């Protein structure tokens, strides 16, 4: 099993798309941090943007800021990554080269999921480090303290990281199911993105839809850990649900979807003919 993980790691690590996703994420974070710093500098010492930048770019606030950026990109990053990673086995017809080498098809899919999880963790870690370093450089340019006392703790950051990985995991498995159904990278990306948009529209139709579908629950989780907004957004979420819903209920609902996507992917993948690309 470990050797199969190493085989998938080699493929994933050297994929141009993997490098592309990491680079684009880092560029977005660096541009956001750099832009914020430049704007603060242009507004001058003592201005509101200047003071906000000093606070936001210092340690550990920059970590939270980076997580917010990642959260905005998370759905797209997860969908594109897994659709490309699994879909290319169909489009290049490489399944036929690897599946006959092992008896269990399930094992291949578990490894793909494990590698996707690894990728998400590595991406989040690298982005956080780069985000914080760029943030600190920004603070130094602004002439502030790189680690002022703050109410944000590392435990809060850890919770936010967990929620982000959970969110990306959800979208990854949604896209995985789409790839396996359509047997195509494009199918996975289109269905992954469109499904998310359509679900977002449906959840606005009724409070029941919001309660049953996963979107608002994901938002609820992200808000709970301090990513993507504050109290005013919580009020909006409560309004969508028609009541206040505990974060644990939201975790349970999203987990149920994750399990359903996983079971569906496994069921189809192990039974369907692999008849060529």
């Amino acid at each position, binding site marked *: 099993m470990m050797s199969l993980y190493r085989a998938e790691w080699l493929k994933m690590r050297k994929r141009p798309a993997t490098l592309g996703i990491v680079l684009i994420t880092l560029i977005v974070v660096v541009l956001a941090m750099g832009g914020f710093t430049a704007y603060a500098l242009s507004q001058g010492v003592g201005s509101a943007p200047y003071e906000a930048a000093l606070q936001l770019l210092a340690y550990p606030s920059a970590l939270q800021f980076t997580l917010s950026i990642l959260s905005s990109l998370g759905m797209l990053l997860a969908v594109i990554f897994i659709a490309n990673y699994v879909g290319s086995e169909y489009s290049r017809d490489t399944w036929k080269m690897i599946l006959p080498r092992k*008896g269990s098809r399930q094992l291949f899919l578990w490894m793909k999921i494990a590698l996707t999880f690894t990728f998400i963790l590595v991406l989040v870690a690298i982005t956080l480090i780069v985000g914080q370093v760029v943030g600190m450089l920004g603070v130094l340019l602004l002439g502030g303290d790189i680690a002022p006392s703050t109410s944000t703790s590392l435990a809060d950051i850890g919770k936010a990281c967990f929620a982000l990985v959970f969110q990306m995991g959800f979208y990854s498995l949604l896209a995985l199911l789409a790839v396996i159904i359509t047997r195509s990278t494009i199918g996975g990306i289109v269905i992954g993105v469109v499904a998310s948009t359509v679900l977002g529209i449906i959840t606005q139709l009724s409070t029941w839809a919001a309660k049953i579908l996963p979107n608002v629950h994901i938002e609820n989780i992200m808000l709970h850990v301090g990513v993507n907004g504050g109290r005013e957004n919580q009020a909006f979420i409560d309004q969508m649900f028609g009541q206040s819903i505990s974060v644990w209920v939201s975790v349970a609902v999203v987990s149920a979807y994750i399990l359903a996507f996983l079971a569906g992917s496994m069921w189809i993948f192990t039974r369907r003919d692999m008849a*060529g690309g």
Partner: protein
Amino acid sequence: MSEIAITARGLTKVYGRTPAVNKLDLDIKAGSVYGFLGPNGAGKTTTIRMLLGLIQPTAGTAQVLGHDIRTEREAIARKVAAIVESPAFYTYLSGIDNLRVFARTSGVDDSNARLQGLLERVGLGPRGKDKVKTYSLGMKQRLGIAATLLNDPQIIFLDEPTNGLDPAGTVEMRHMIERLGHEGRTIFLSSHLLHEVEQVCTSVAIIQQGVTIAQGRVQDLVNDGGGYAIEAAPFDRAMSVLQEHRELNASSQDGHWINVSAQASDMPQLVRALVAANVDVYQVQVRQRSLENLFLELTNGGGPANAFVPQPLAEMEVGQ
């Protein structure tokens, strides 16, 4: 190693209402180089994919090295390797990294020395570190052969391994297949190139529309039904003498040579009958078919099944 490498009984795959493979029977001896022939769409690749577990049979049974293809995939995976249609690779990886991926997937030694050794064996040693996207089709086929050797398989499935190769590449691939056969492995070779198959295969099966229409040793198949060709004059008198024996199916395509379906033991009596009828017999030649002729006869030139049309003598090889 078991005596029989692959058996299939009534192996069937139906897509919608169309049978791609229809009650296929196979018996392939271990250690043989087995040619699997058929026109396009005959069901060759579907059969290979079923034997490899890539697709599920609709009906029938098959065993690979004594293991059921439906229930014992793990055991089969350790003992077989395959190139299905054209070999597919991770083109952004180098040749040696592709082998490393396949070795790790199989759970076998992926050391540089071993992988480089395999690359050398197929003549790709100096190009092993280049990305596969820079390889020619012939190089990809050779890399595919190297990939099949990673788990030291007892059976290698090669599906059209010479497709797209130039003549030199085709000859090189043939030699490679011969070498693999000499190592005692069972080679399951699906190909359109009948001349190539005839040169390397010990046994063949010919399938059409998913049905086995001939199976056996190459020598037996090409000899069976070959008969004799007789050059005699006057032609009309010779023909009327031979047509008195209806079982000979005497016929001629060119008004010169007369083809008869006869055994060697019948020939002295036939010649005596011709001479007794004042016919001069100039030559009697064994009429041996090439595999290509046999294939075209049985498949009606690759057309619909069950439309048997004998090939004219002019298209047959005539030899001693």
